Every structure is written in C-alpha cells, then in structure tokens.
C-alpha cells in the first residue's frame, strides 16, 4: 500500500505516494522526474545523490521517501535562481571543475551547504567536508579551487 507524503521541494509544495521501501532518491528520480540527484552507489559512499533536508546536507539514498513528510528538501534543481547560476555553479564552470559531470550535482549541493555553514573554509576544511563526494575524473584539484573562488565571491 502506498504512503502519501506531503513535502516541500525547492520551495514548492509537492505531494507524492511511495512504497515504504522506496528511498528519497528513488522518489526524486522515478516519481518526480528530478533526475539531477544521481545513484552512484545507493550506499551513502559517493555523494552523487546529495540533497538537503531541512537545510542539512544528506544522501537521498540513505533516506526513505516516507520520512520526508513535512520536511523541506533542497535539490540541485533548486540551486540556481531561474537562469541565474549560484556562485558555486559559475565557479565550477570557470575553473573547468568538471569533466564527465555526473558527480557535479552532488558537488554543487554539498559545496553550497558548506559555504552556508562556513563562509571562509580552509582548503583542509573543504577537502574533509567534500570527502563524501567522489569524483573520478578531476582529482579534485579544480573542484577545491572552484569552492575557494565561490567562497571568496560570496564573502564579497
């Protein structure tokens, strides 16, 4: 029997019905067609499915769809304001900080959460915060630089 869930995604009210076993990632991708979050592992080891729940960064693969009743979800689709990119998105482009781009949605969500919590992180703090976001293409160098640049720009 399906479970009815009312929630808010990227500021909009959303209702869906899901099975008890379904993860939030399954719901986002298969029921709501929000395919920005990716399934890289389904075990919380890669970060490609990163979202925020009530502002806190988490893996949507480690959350049941049923759990988000009344919560506020933030996904990569909500990071840009219309066609205006968030600084972290722009700096990822400017720094060539993506190659294949499949980890990028998770990187964007995680980096944004970091900069909201800590506007001036050290390189080491960035690296440890981002350790749960696997990137196999870049070796992380340009991603770290993009986050540093975005932090600097956001601090003004």
């Amino acid at each position, binding site marked *: 029997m399906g*479970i009815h869930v009312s929630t808010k995604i990227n500021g909009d009210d959303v209702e869906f019905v899901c*099975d*008890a*076993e379904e*993860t939030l990632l399954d719901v986002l991708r298969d029921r709501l067609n929000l395919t920005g979050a990716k399934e890289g592992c*389904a*075990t*919380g*080891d890669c*970060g490609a499915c*990163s979202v925020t*729940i009530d502002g*806190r*960064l*988490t*893996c949507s*693969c*480690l*959350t*049941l769809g*049923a*759990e988000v*009743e009344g919560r506020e979800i933030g996904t990569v689709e909500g990071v840009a304001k219309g066609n205006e990119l968030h600084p972290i998105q722009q700096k990822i482009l400017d720094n060539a900080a993506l190659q294949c781009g499949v980890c990028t949605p998770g990187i964007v969500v*995680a980096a944004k*959460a*970091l900069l909201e919590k800590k506007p001036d992180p050290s390189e080491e703090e960035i690296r*440890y*915060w*981002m*350790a*749960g*976001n696997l990137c196999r293409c870049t070796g992380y160098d340009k991603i770290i630089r993009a986050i540093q640049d975005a932090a600097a720009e956001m601090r003004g």
Partner: protein
Amino acid sequence: MRYEAPTTVEAAVSLLSAEAGLAKVLSGGTDLLVQMRMGMMEPDLIVDTKRIPGFGDIVEENGGYRVGGAVPSAELNEHAGFTAMYPGVAEGADLIGSTQVQGRATITGNLCNAGPAADSVPCAVAVGCVARIAGPNGKRDVAIEDIPQAPGKTSLEKGELVESLFFPAKPANTGDAYLRFIPRTEMDIAVAGCGISITLDDTGTCTAAKVAIGAVAIKVLVVDEAAQALIGTKVDEAALDALASACSAAAKPITDKRGTVEFRKEVVGVLAKRAAKIALDRAKGA
C-alpha cells in the same frame, strides 16, 4: 514492509512488540537502509523514531548531557556544551562516514547496529555513557558496553529500543580522546580504534582511566589492563608503552579485506598511545 513514525515512545514500543516478523528501529538509517538495499535484511516493519518528542534533543542533566536517540552526529558536533565537555566522543561521532552521513547517522544507531568498528562507541564507553532503554516492561538504564554482543546482535529484548544516551558530568581534570585507523583519510570503516578517558589528580597522577578498543574483536572491548597501566602513573612513556601492550594483547581481531590480525593488534596499541596523549593534554586543560 510497513513504515511507522509514532509520536510517543510507548507507541514505538507497542509497534515493535506487536510485530510478528522482523521489526527494525530507524533513527538515522545510514546502516539500515544500506542493509535493505543490499538485500542483507528485509524488515517487515520499520519504526522511525525521529517524530517522538525528545528523541532529537540534547539536554543538560545533573551536570552531564542526555542525548536523544535520534540526534544525528552533525547536531552533536554543533552543540558547544557537549563538544567542550566530551571532545573525544564528539570527534568519534564526527568520523562516521561523510558529512552527508553525519547529517543522518546517530550514536544510538551506531551502537545498536552493533558493528565492532562503530566509531562513536569506544569513546562513549570510555566516558561512562549509559543508555536508557524503553521496552514493554518499562525503562532501564544500561552501560552501553553491555548492549552490543556480536556483529549485528545486541542485548536488547523484543520490543525494546534505546530512547537516549546519558553522558554523566565530567569529573575534574579529565580528558577524553578517540583515534581510529583507516587506509584513507575519510569514508572508511575503522581497521582499529581506541577511545580513552583519563582523570588526573592535582599532581598530574592518573587516578582513573577507562580504555575501550574497537574493530579488533566481535564487539567494542573495555580493556581494564590498559586502564591499570595508566592509573597511578604520570602517563609517562613507560606507562604509555604498557598501555599499548595491554591493548594489543587484549585485541582479538580477524584478518579480512580491511586489515590483518597482526596489523590490527599492533596498530590498536599505537592508537591507544596516541589517544592517551591527547586525552592527557585535555585532562591537563591544555
């Protein structure tokens, strides 16, 4: 499978008691959901504790802290009072998985999943953490080292769940620390770990200590010999060597994909020594 999110602990206990099949408590879910996805576990009922009042709270109690059963590691680490009192416990909790995982994972879940390598458990054991268990026969308080029995097995009875963890007031001149070894810098399961609490008198002599080691046996072990190696000393090199030897001797690890018996026995001693130095500095207020 059914999903229930009761709003009282009594309702949670009734649901867990009444289920004829496999009932699992969901606090953070970072172990449970993985086990379900990998087909290692097929629960008939999941009881989500996050909607029970108090389960998400950290409150002061008798000079210590009571941490609700659904408080995620990230929140514990944002609590200034708790991290000031028990930095070692907080650091242990902060080592569980990624930032994302810490947004969900709870110490209670880490404890009740009963994995021998649980990072938040050894230091919590070392500082004397007590679990409050709610069940069909009411509530009881149990030292947390008595809960895990073997990988995936706890001493909890049918219908019972851990409602909160109580960290007693820290005695004066006491410091705690936790260190673990992993092959990378993040994201791994501990290959060996050691949590330690040290109390000094005014002369700097160790008057009390508790040492717990992880990932080197079927459950987290309290090593009395290791504590005895420190008590009555100034925690000098000789005492630290004795501590390391006691931890290595007490370890009963296995060889697996994460490490060998020899490696784990040796490294748990190295970690004990290094953790003791940190705990010592903290006890001295450095």
